[in-house]
């Protein structure tokens, strides 16, 4: 193994279930239901997944949900806005912890 991530491994996802098929079957059934058209469209869900994929920095998920977003009719502009939302929340989440820094700073400062 010369790298932890190999694009061909994505297709082997189901093999993770070999140690416990029942749990994996439940996961895939739930996963399929989550992404089905509902109150949100399949395209909106694909864009959310694409954004989350960037936030959790999962190369498999970025590959899969770029393809999925395109297959659901999303444009490059929509996909780019989605990852900006992820980036904004990640950046904002880091920055908002500045209030903790401020709390500690104020407690320690004269």
């Amino acid at each position, binding site marked *: 193994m010369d790298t932890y991530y190999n694009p061909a491994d994505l297709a082997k996802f189901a093999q993770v279930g070999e140690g416990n098929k029942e749990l994996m079957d439940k996961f895939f059934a739930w996963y399929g239901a989550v992404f089905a*058209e509902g109150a949100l*469209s*399949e*395209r909106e869900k694909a864009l959310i997944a694409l954004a989350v994929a960037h936030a959790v920095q999962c190369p498999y998920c970025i590959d899969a949900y770029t*393809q999925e977003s*395109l*297959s*659901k*009719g999303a*444009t490059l*502009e929509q996909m780019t806005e989605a990852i900006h939302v992820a980036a904004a929340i990640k950046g904002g989440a880091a920055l908002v912890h500045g209030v903790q820094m401020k709390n500690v700073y104020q407690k320690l400062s004269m």
Partner: protein
Amino acid sequence: MPTATKSLKSLQHPLASPQTQLELIDHKLNLPPFEEMFKQTGEAELRATGIEIFQVNVGKLCNQVCKHCHVDAGPDRREIMTRETFELCLNALAQTDIPKVDITGGAPEMNPHFRWFVAEVKKLKRHVMVRSNLTILLANGFTDLPEFFAEHQVEVISSLPHYTPSVTDKQRGEDVFSRSIEAIKRLNALGYGKEESGLVFNLVYNPVGAFLPPNQASLEKDYKRELHKHYGVFFNRLYTITNMPISRFLDYLLISGNYEAYMTKLVSLFNPSAAKGVMCRNTLSISWDGYLYDCDFNQMLDLKVGYGSPMHIKDFDVAKLNTRKIVTRQHCYGCTAGAGSSCGGATA
């Protein structure tokens, strides 16, 4: 990928040859043969169920050079149907009660016999569909076509790969989107696309890249909302069509390194119910030179009807063609993946 300006044929590209394409499609990858996969439908072989659509490809001449075009059409193509071959088509039609005539190309309107042929088909009391690229309706000598279509109650079917200008122009050429919108406005002004008018105007989506189409009903809602909101135009139905791995799209797949992944995806998404509804079952495709094919894609691969069926319109025999066995190769996976694909959109 830059906008194409010439056909593969005029560039003397190896993929201009149907034999080269077939060699590649059938042998480059080790995929299960389509004919075997089709048996998952519960049927032993793919056969026609009767002819409902008489699809006439009147030639490869076109005013556009779209990147994905399976016909390899363009302004540099000169192969168009002659009046004699049109007459053979009319004779064949008159022997039958085939209800629909689907006229395609190239830009079919550029064939000098196009209007005469439409009028003759209407005299036979058949429904006429024309696959118009829209921009031709703005070209000199063709601007009265919307009125001609309306007068003859022609159903107009047009490609618009996306409701955003950038995506459409990427595939079909610079300014094609804005000119298409202008043409749609002309059609709408005559009543085309209004449910109550009886003048049917349908759009076609196909992916601009190596992926499959979205859900047809869901995308139709998006198209209707966005096209009306931004441009004030309307249409009846949206058909989603999968890009077939042949001709210019095959060239793109190979150049971009997407061929293997695309074909693997088509095979992995084989859908038996889509396969049962493939368009070749109720369509007969006629080429500019009068040969008969199971579909327009087979026509471009020079795969004529087989298994003893008459191969030319001059030998037309509806009884033999009605239940003919369909000629299939590996490109047929393009019509059976996911929700399926046909000239009338999704099939499953």
